[in-house]
């Protein structure tokens, strides 16, 4: 990875000649491949082809197309690519066709050097063509879906970007649905995903830094951020952490998330993930850095604070009053989903005096004949529900109705009628379950789900004192977390007033004049002009 960085900076600063030298100087690059790959390409096409075929072990999906000069047997041009990675129509139309028609006329009488330049500059009808000097480079390009063109007599090859192949179309997001708002979702293709973001932020300051991770998977990832809005120190930190990753495979953004997150031991997510390009764009516009990974529709966003997980992108597409209301509901739902069963157990076991007498009597009557103590009853129901939920996710879709009948009727109604559990606990567990689906970020609701079990045990053994102790530990833990240097509980602690406009309430867009100073670069915070409140004519602005 460092190699790539070195290359990259060199390229920016001093151009390509320096950069090729860098390849030679950096001895590390050779470790993965055999020694002769690092040496330059041969002038002989056949020899080059042999090297590459040997390196790929003669895989059958490697396609080689050789073109002879008119009337001779000697190969003058050869194409090499991997079958299913390239767009074959493109190879045929843009490379094969022009080259074959040129070959007769323009080659005659030219030196191989001139011929090479003609092909490079005029013949290949593909947007991106680059020179290859070593088999190693060529190999990497082939594996990325490019087509390599070898020309007889020149020690450089040309790589044309013809990558294509099957990919999924942009569809509606499956995990973060909205009623109003864009219905696009990221796909598995990094190119599509980058275009979805660029189409939303048409600023020249949008930066895309590409890296390749995973020694075997060679997965492409891209850091996307806005220059001057994302804090430079945080960008550097993200880069540093990603460069540290040394693994053989990256198949999903979660792999990266686990390698770069701040706190490895915590139930709380310290990196946000989203399937929605509009959510990613909104994050980037506030100074977050998006990490897009090829092969998954889930992009990562960092840094992130606790309250961010309670925002849905729809908050910003709906009126601010209802958005605020819904946001508050989500916080309530989070606490319900974390604490309700525990509170129920604690109060019915230890602090019955808190309940009004009629309610107490009704609860006691229900529990008459139930063989388990409240904690066992609640744990049983919770585990049952977790099993149901997992079954719902994993089972084939066709048997869905069967599971719901078994779940709802057998486990709910019949269990109560049989006197195994009380009706109250069914209500508590069901409400808890529904509440846990309200939190827009699935990874935060998972945190609440895990903590719920700990809280239930605490509430069942030590009552309210246990729950309070648990909450205290949780609070200390949350206060100790950071996400890329940003304290996790901002803007609550440390207190940041600017962020409060978009924390528990969602103020109108014209009030949120500044970007959150905790994430965005401090020198460039203003996002809109003063006095943006709408002032329709015919109405006095002051009354």
């Amino acid at each position: 990875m460092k190699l790539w960085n070195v290359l990259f900076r060199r390229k920016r600063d001093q151009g390509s000649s320096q950069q090729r030298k860098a390849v030679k100087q950096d001895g590390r690059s050779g470790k993965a491949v055999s020694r002769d790959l690092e040496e330059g390409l041969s002038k002989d096409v056949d020899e080059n082809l042999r090297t590459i075929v040997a390196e790929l072990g003669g895989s059958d999906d490697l396609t080689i197309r050789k073109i002879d000069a008119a009337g001779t047997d000697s190969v003058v041009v050869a194409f090499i690519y991997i079958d299913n990675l390239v767009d074959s129509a493109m190879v045929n139309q843009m490379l094969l066709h022009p080259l074959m028609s040129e070959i007769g006329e323009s080659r005659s009488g030219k030196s191989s050097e001139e011929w090479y330049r003609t092909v490079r500059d005029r013949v290949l009808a593909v947007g991106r063509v680059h020179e290859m000097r070593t088999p190693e480079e060529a190999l990497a390009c082939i594996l990325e879906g490019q087509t390599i063109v070898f020309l007889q007599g020149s020690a450089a090859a040309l790589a044309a970007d013809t990558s294509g192949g099957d990919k999924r179309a942009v569809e509606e997001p499956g995990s973060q649905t909205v009623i109003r708002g864009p219905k696009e979702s990221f796909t598995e293709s990094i190119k599509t995903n980058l275009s979805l973001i660029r189409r939303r932020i048409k600023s020249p300051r949008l930066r895309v830094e590409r890296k390749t991770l995973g020694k075997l998977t060679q997965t492409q990832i891209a850091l996307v951020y806005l220059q001057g809005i994302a804090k430079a120190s945080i960008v550097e930190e993200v880069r540093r952490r990603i460069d540290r990753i040394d693994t053989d495979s990256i198949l999903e953004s979660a792999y990266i998330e686990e390698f770069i997150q701040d706190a490895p031991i915590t139930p709380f997510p310290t990196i946000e993930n989203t399937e929605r390009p509009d959510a990613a764009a909104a994050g980037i516009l506030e100074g977050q850095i998006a990490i897009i990974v090829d092969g998954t529709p889930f992009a990562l966003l960092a840094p992130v604070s606790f309250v961010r997980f309670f925002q849905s992108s729809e908050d910003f597409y709906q009126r601010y009053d209802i958005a605020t209301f819904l946001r508050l509901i989500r916080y309530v739902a989070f606490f319900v989903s974390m604490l309700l069963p525990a509170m129920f157990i604690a109060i019915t076991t230890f602090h019955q005096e808190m309940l009004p007498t009629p309610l107490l009597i009704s609860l006691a009557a229900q529990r008459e004949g139930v063989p388990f103590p409240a904690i066992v009853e609640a744990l049983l129901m919770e585990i049952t529900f977790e099993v149901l939920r997992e079954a719902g996710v994993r089972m084939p879709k066709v048997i869905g109705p069967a599971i719901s009948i078994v779940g709802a009727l057998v486990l709910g109604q019949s269990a109560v009628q049989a006197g195994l559990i009380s009706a109250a606990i069914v209500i508590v567990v069901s409400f808890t379950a529904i509440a846990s689906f309200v939190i827009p970020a699935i990874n935060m609701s998972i945190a609440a789900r895990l903590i719920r079990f700990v809280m239930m045990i605490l509430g069942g053994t030590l009552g309210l004192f246990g729950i309070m102790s648990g909450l205290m530990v949780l609070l200390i833990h949350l206060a100790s977390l950071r996400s890329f240097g940003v304290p996790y509980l901002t803007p609550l602690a440390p207190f940041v007033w600017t962020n409060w406009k978009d924390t528990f309430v969602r103020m109108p867009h014209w009030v949120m004049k500044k970007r959150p100073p905790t994430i965005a670069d401090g020198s460039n915070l203003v996002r809109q002009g003063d006095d943006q409140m709408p002032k329709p004519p015919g109405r006095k602005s002051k009354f």
Partner: protein
Amino acid sequence: MEAAAVEGPGGLFRMFGGLRRAGGKLNGRGRGMVCHVTGNSKVKLPLPRLPMERISQSQLAAMIVLFQIGSSPLFLLASDAGADAWISVLIGMIGGLLLLLLVTLQLYRRMPEEDLFDMIERSFGKVAGSLLTAVYIVYFGYKAVRNVREFGDLMILYLLPSTPLWFILLILMVIAAYAVFQGIEVFSRVAQILLPMIVFVYIALFVALWGTELFDAHRLMPVLDSGLKKPIESALPELISFPFGEMVLFLLFWKYADRRGGTTRTTVLSYLFSGTFIVVTTIFILGSLGPLAEFSVVPLIQIVSLVQTADFIQRLDPVVALLLFGGVFMKMTFYYLGTTLLFSRLFRIGRYAALFPVGALLFAGSMAFRSYMQHIWFGFEKNLKYHFPIFQIVIPVLLLLAAMIRSRFEKNGRTPS
């Protein structure tokens, strides 16, 4: 965008330069390495050094308020003064303010970079200084022990009558140790979040007392029935010792404050806020319970159990008890943290290493009291009058005098001995 546009051709050029660079990154356009050849390069990058822990002024304020409120509303302070107890509290608060302004804060202002350990060592030398630090460790530790025990006993009294005391104390110590382990920065954030909640509960409680007409101002009458002498007598020195003089602990924490200039102001304002708060609490206790207040173990909880709003909310006392005890927990953790910091300085070990011996000592100490009543009696009868003023007033004054003499010497061009 704007920046590029206003800078004229240069800016425009840069803009396109930026575009090209971004494009280069994205597409690998141009010559050279395009497809990324990754070797298995394992790069070891140095971790950035952690800066010293810092707390903001608002966090400092939250800490001071929580620390001052702490456990004080649990007791009826200056109960000897009867209906005039709140006047005693007011007098105590003013006395405490004078102490804070003239001594404790002066010490800090003279040596803002130093904590109590450095101050003592500078003024009393290595040997005597170490001894004195050790004594301070005992004092802070003892204060922590008192709070731990208070918490445990009240918990058993109100919430968990059949749970063994040691178990509750153990859990409490473990949570506090976790907080101390995370350090002052994290703990100050915890304070910042808890403060609004605790204050909100108190205010809701006062409103409920007012609304349900439990509070009756006549119970405070007649004001100063037996003259000013009695309130003053019961205020000094007890009320300076608890809770107002306890600010001496912040000699350990002030140095972490961000934006130094505001520290004095923040401290005094938050002190005034919490002082007023305690006075108001005392007024409410007296006005709601009257003479009964003296005989109640925790008057405030007794009041809560009298509050009945609507038919549904009948007994909120477990919830309120928990929040009140939240204050006790915070105060105890402040002392635990202070003890640990001082301990680690004295024995020149890290905070993490000091955490466990100190915690074990506090736990053992809190089990040593025979009963809650012995603990309260010992605290109110002996400690407040004879022991605590030494640490809160006498030694700080000595330190200040030493500092003043030192600076006098320095002004005269001589080196201090």
